[in-house]
């Protein structure tokens, strides 16, 4: 029978686990919260933008191991930056070639982006091969931090928390405290009026979509520390991502945070007391029930239509 202090240790680690699942969910949903929440674009290829980040990390890890092994402990930061840039550019082109033609047909966007996701998966397969790959992660990132003998706190979890906090902060500032954010929100609330007062709405659309994709790229890079890198890895995250954004109330960033937190805590606690599959059943049932009662999600939109 485990002693009381051991229960304490497990309790602490389990609490940390809940927080760490929260950060993972939030990180994967942030990009979509911008794209789906602000723009109303149902981007089924969100998972593939995550995968871009994962593959960029893999590529950089390969390059550093080959050409600059001494930089191995630090390449991960560069990988995050480059993931953002790459996903941003791909997102920018996607908006230009595809999404911008479909703003008046939201359901067709769903089909088109789903097609895009399949095309992107096959592209990854053609470039990197069908088999999964693995980025060599810096040692400092993969260990655990031991405050006492029986408590192990995963360092990648801590890292993910820090990253999520910074990213959420930056997005919040961008959307609600910057000139650009003002333009984005104005465009989403009333496109015609925004155009009339001199905002280039097409440019705003393009950069908003690209930003959402870039954020997904960052998440993808971070997820190489906890998950797989393969052509279809993105599809592992897409369902949870939509779940978080829809449950939170699509137009609200705060809603996305609250939703990620409540889903993560429910899931993590239920997993501990039930089995993994049953925990999923319980979480999904709770979400469905709440959405039945509150179809607009946790936080209702305060935007005038």
């Amino acid at each position: 029978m485990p002693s009381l202090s051991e229960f304490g240790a497990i309790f602490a680690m389990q609490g940390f686990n809940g927080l760490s699942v929260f950060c993972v969910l939030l990180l994967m949903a942030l990009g979509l919260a911008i794209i789906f929440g602000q723009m109303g674009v149902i981007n089924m290829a969100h998972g593939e933008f995550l995968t871009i980040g994962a593959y960029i990390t893999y590529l950089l890890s390969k390059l550093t191991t080959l050409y600059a092994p001494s930089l191995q402990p630090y390449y991960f930061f560069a990988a995050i930056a480059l993931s953002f840039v790459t996903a941003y550019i791909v997102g920018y082109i996607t908006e230009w070639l595809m999404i911008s033609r479909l703003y008046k047909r939201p359901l067709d966007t769903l089909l088109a982006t789903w097609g895009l996701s399949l095309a992107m998966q096959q592209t990854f397969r053609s470039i990197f091969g069908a088999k999964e790959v693995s980025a060599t992660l810096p040692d400092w990132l993969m260990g655990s931090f031991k405050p006492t003998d029986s408590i192990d706190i995963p360092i990648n979890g801590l890292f993910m928390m820090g990253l999520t906090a910074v990213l959420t902060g930056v997005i919040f500032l961008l959307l609600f405290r910057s000139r650009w954010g003002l333009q984005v929100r104005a465009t989403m609330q009333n496109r015609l009026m925004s155009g009339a007062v001199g905002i280039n709405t097409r440019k705003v659309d393009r950069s908003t979509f690209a930003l959402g994709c870039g954020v997904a790229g960052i998440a993808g890079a971070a997820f190489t520390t906890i998950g797989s890198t393969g052509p279809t890895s993105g599809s592992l995250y897409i369902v949870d991502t939509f779940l978080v954004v829809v449950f939170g109330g699509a137009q609200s960033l705060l809603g996305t945070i609250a939703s990620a937190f409540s889903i993560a805590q429910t899931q993590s606690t239920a997993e501990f007391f039930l089995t993994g599959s049953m925990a999923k059943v319980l979480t999904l049932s709770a979400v469905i029930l709440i959405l039945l009662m509150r179809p607009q999600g946790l936080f209702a939109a305060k935007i005038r239509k």
Partner: protein
Amino acid sequence: MSHRSVSDKPSFQRRKVLLGLAASAALALPAMGFAQSPATAKINTTKLAVTDTEVTVGQLHSATGTMAISETGSIQAERLAIDQINSMGGILGRKIKIIQEDGASDWPTFAEKARKLLESDHVAAVFGCWTSASRKAVLPVFEKDNGLLYYPTFYEGLEQSKNVFYTGQEATQQVLAGLNWVAKEKKAKTFFLVGSDYIWPRTSNKIARKHIENVLKGSVVGEEYYPLGNTQFGSLINKIKLKKPDVIFADVVGGSNVAFYKQLKAAGVTAKTQNLLTISVTEDEMLGIGGENVEGFYSSMKYFQSLDNPNNKKFVAEFKAKFGPNAVIGDVTQAAYLGPWLWKAAVEKAGSFDVDKVVAASPGFELKSAPEGYVKVHANHHLWSKTRIGEAQKDGQFKVIYESDLIEPNPFPKGYQ
């Protein structure tokens, strides 16, 4: 990386093959009318696609979709075997021609393509499938059309068909030897079973539990299943820490597998303090997980790339010569390589391509040139084989630290169901 040409241009190749087939059929018809080759008529009484110079077989794997990760190795291995057989002169004087179909990780597609291969291409044998779900989907087609399937994956057992040969291990072969080893060498008494939530892990763990409780007199302190594709294992790892099992017995698959091992390592659960025995990590999975994240854990398989015998050295060298120096070979890839060789031997023994005669000639055949060393075909269509324990190394390979005796396949194990 030459495997790309296999996996990424199926439609183009297929078109070429189909055109070739149409052309050869057009040429063959008049030839048969005027100068009928008695040899062909004798060795093919069931209207299979056999001509005086060629025999056509099918290859049915997922070259696209989720399962392409796993099935690519099998596609390569079967191609290698067939190329080698062809360069030795083929079978009964006939070169093997391959029609490759893509199951696209979708089970109804597998059934449809199987029907196409058997009913319109009349292939003499099919090498294919990977997941149990795809095998179950094509089984009725093979039984109805009296086709012949060589299936490479280690699987849960509980199946036996006249029309299928199972070149991978069934669950008892893989599970029991591994558990016996860990109980003896690590004095393990308590086990925590972890798996993905579908038929193979559930059946394998059921067999494991019965063996642990009834034979090893140990106890199962936890049995947990997570949905396929689950990426969060934090709560599970805490439960394992609470229960402190002597051994974690793991059969998690796919993207979840990578997440499971990365998170174990991040939570401080490594081989230094914890024994872990898995039946779902081969060299292929190690590519995705990263050797540094599974280092020191044990895997129970019939084949490892590092096996030290002349057959295997030759096989690994030939595989790398064809598919690049970085190619890795996992358990299933080797089992897929056995398929064409077992078929060749049975056809030659039967002196015929007819499925019934090939099936009748198969049991009892010994393949002494197998990379895994030696296999023998059992009357139940599975293979006698040895089980090895490999210790995972940082470089993505396994060090073989134990080898069992030859184990009889037992797809319907009494007392384990």
